[in-house]
């Protein structure tokens, strides 16, 4: 479905140089869709990335039909969605590895997806006297997600760390095919339970943009409130785990208590601790009455004050800070090349935040303060998350204070129109992209998710191997706190 929007000047100039390769240009708010032959995809994508200063955000195939690549155009606050048409019957996909180091991980997953068993990257052998491998199998220590991690070590020093994902593949994307958009929402929410709102938001926004549905203002603000409540408990969870990994169980318990209070706020005001079932395409499922909004605001303020007290205490505990300093450093070049997102990227200097760069819901009005640092160590990741908690507290208070009147959801068509669209949101872990294609009968034809953790997993190995010892591993692990569920889907 083409739009009639005028192409921004800079983008126009850049596209002019590849006009012979790009065929059809269509537009939706925040997304420019370019169709081209799959073979032309690598050079066009490289040219666009270079000219607009972005990096590959997502890459997913529809086997036998298209190869999709997504690049951000930050100045224009838009995504460029390149849709490469594959020759019918071909199984080969054009390689973007040469221009985008981040493309290698997509290729690996694609190659592994024929079977359903987990496959690690083909790893070069590590020789040397005394070097052995320390496996952290899929079944890891207390409440850790299932991922295979192999550490090449010579006793204390981590020489190399290789994660193997794929153990948790549930076939979510394939299961969604053939379902109504409303039913598939239940799957989208459960891509990752602790980022349910972010995934549901991205999914709903993709559907809304596909059908041209405008979300009413009240719903948009409520969506901001929901997303920030999720960010609050998510970051508190991460920080609590980080403090626990540094051995400070008292601090971890205090932060855990605070997180539990936020989960209880979610339950009492929105009906579910993890905010499942709060979003629907078109708006939010149930409205928030005025008294509830007021009580939520008071509670958040009070707990925000408690958070600030804990934050000061943690900063003043050298036993914790010493362990985070210079641990698990991700340097800026690696972060940029591998397209790091979220707090991990921002702690290494990659200043990207979807809420600010590609505003959705009511973020155009409530612009969040986005912190970033350059150190790239665990301490920087803590600082980023702490600053984001402060920003979220402010945002929630502001949003609840200025909640506009009106309906909490818009009307949506009974049968969803056919088409495809991108949806995005900033999860606590970072930039999340969903792509949906609805078929002729109004059912989902194809569905792809590119979660934030997917982008960051490749940084985990280099961060851990950089002169760290085995006892630093839990610190690095918790400072990344990568989710395996939405990587394996």
């Amino acid at each position, binding site marked *: 479905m083409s739009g009639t929007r005028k192409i921004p000047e800079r983008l126009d100039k850049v596209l002019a140089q590849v006009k012979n390769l790009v065929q059809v240009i269509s537009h939706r708010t925040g997304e420019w869709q370019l169709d081209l032959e799959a073979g032309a995809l690598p050079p066009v994508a490289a040219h666009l990335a270079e000219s607009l200063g972005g990096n590959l955000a997502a890459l997913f195939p529809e086997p036998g039909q298209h190869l999709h690549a997504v690049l951000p155009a930050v100045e224009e606050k838009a995504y460029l969605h390149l849709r490469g048409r594959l020759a019918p019957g071909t199984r080969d996909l054009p390689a973007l590895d040469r221009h985008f180091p981040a493309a290698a991980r997509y290729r690996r997953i694609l190659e592994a997806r024929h079977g359903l*068993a987990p496959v690690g990257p083909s790893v070069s052998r590590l020789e040397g006297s005394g070097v052995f491998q320390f496996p952290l199998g899929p079944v890891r220590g207390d409440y850790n*997600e299932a991922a295979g991690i192999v550490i090449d070590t010579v006793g204390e020093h981590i020489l190399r760390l290789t994660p193997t994902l794929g153990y948790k593949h549930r*076939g979510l994307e394939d299961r969604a095919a053939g379902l109504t958009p409303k039913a598939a929402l*239940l799957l989208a929410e459960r891509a990752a339970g602790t980022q349910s709102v972010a995934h549901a938001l991205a999914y709903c926004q993709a559907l809304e943009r596909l059908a041209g549905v405008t979300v009413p203002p009240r719903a948009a603000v409520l969506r901001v409130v929901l997303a920030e409540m999720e960010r609050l408990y998510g970051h508190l969870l991460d920080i609590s785990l980080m403090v626990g990994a540094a051995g400070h169980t008292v*601090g971890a318990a205090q932060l855990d208590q605070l997180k539990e209070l936020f989960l209880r706020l979610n*339950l009492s005001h929105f009906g579910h601790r993890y905010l499942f079932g709060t979003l629907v395409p078109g708006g939010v499922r149930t409205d928030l009455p005025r008294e509830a909004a007021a009580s939520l605001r008071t509670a958040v303020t009070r707990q925000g004050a408690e958070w600030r007290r804990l934050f000061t*205490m943690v900063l*003043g505990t050298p036993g914790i800070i010493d362990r985070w300093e210079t641990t698990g450093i991700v340097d800026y070049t690696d972060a940029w090349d591998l397209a790091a997102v979220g707090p991990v990227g921002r702690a290494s200097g990659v200043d990207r935040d979807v809420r600010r760069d590609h505003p959705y819901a009511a973020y155009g009005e409530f612009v969040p303060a986005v912190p970033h640092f350059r150190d790239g160590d665990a301490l920087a990741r803590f600082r980023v998350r702490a600053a984001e908690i402060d920003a979220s507290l402010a945002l929630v208070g502001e949003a609840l204070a200025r909640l506009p009147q009106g309906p909490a959801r818009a009307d949506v068509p009974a049968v969803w129109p056919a088409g495809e669209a991108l949806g995005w949101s900033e999860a606590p872990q970072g930039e999340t992209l969903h792509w949906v294609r609805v078929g002729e009968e109004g059912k989902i034809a194809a569905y792809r998710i590119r979660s934030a953790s997917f982008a960051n997993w490749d940084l985990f190995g280099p961060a851990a191997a950089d002169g760290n010892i085995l006892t630093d591993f839990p610190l690095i692990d918790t400072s990344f706190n990568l989710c395996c569920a939405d990587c394996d889907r």
Partner: protein
Amino acid sequence: MFYDWVFKGLRKGVVSTAYPYNEQELPNYRGLPAVGPGSCPDGCRECEQACLPGAVQVRDATPVIDTALCLFCGECQSVCPRGRITLTNAFETAITSRQTTAAKVVPRDGRLFAKSLYIRHVDAACCGACLRETASLNNPFYDVSRLGIFFTASPRHADVLLVTGPVSWGMRDPLREAYEAMPGPKFVVAAGACAAGGGPFGQPATVGGVDVVMPVDVYIPGCPPHPLALIDGLRLLGGRARKEV
């Protein structure tokens, strides 16, 4: 700074709940669906078609709900033309058999673990919510160590295998290995709708619920089950009645 932490804890005091030794209510919780009196319209299968995991089936003009599969999403409640299905606040959802939901049979040797129960949690392919609720059991509010329930990283020390998430093909063998590594007597608890019955994922993309791979002693439905519901399920294993000490 050391004193700060000490005094903070002391000032906060004890925040642990006394559950299961007292009654608890969760007023806003979307809990067990209840089927009200009346009858369904002829040939109406709205609830059955609306249910993604297939938990609701209409038999003899009455919806029958397999609580193990139920996601507590409320779709059936919103589509029922006669409003027969309502989601209550009941969170004590633990059952020991999917066939006869009323049965709450204490497993054999259960009394051995009345005072001390060691749990090995395995994440089959959980989305993360059930896992976090399980982890919440150790926070100061729920604090299961006061009940003698502990988490261990080694299956050799464990009495209970607590599984969250549907069993993916990749995790089928590791899950089996974890079970084999546990010395008897041992129990299996499937926590959450996905573990209990496969959830909305089902076959062939996943193997299914945990009971496809190994016998399950306690199912704790929910998506995710509230930590109190988890405690309710675990106390079933030890054969503890609510008011016992």
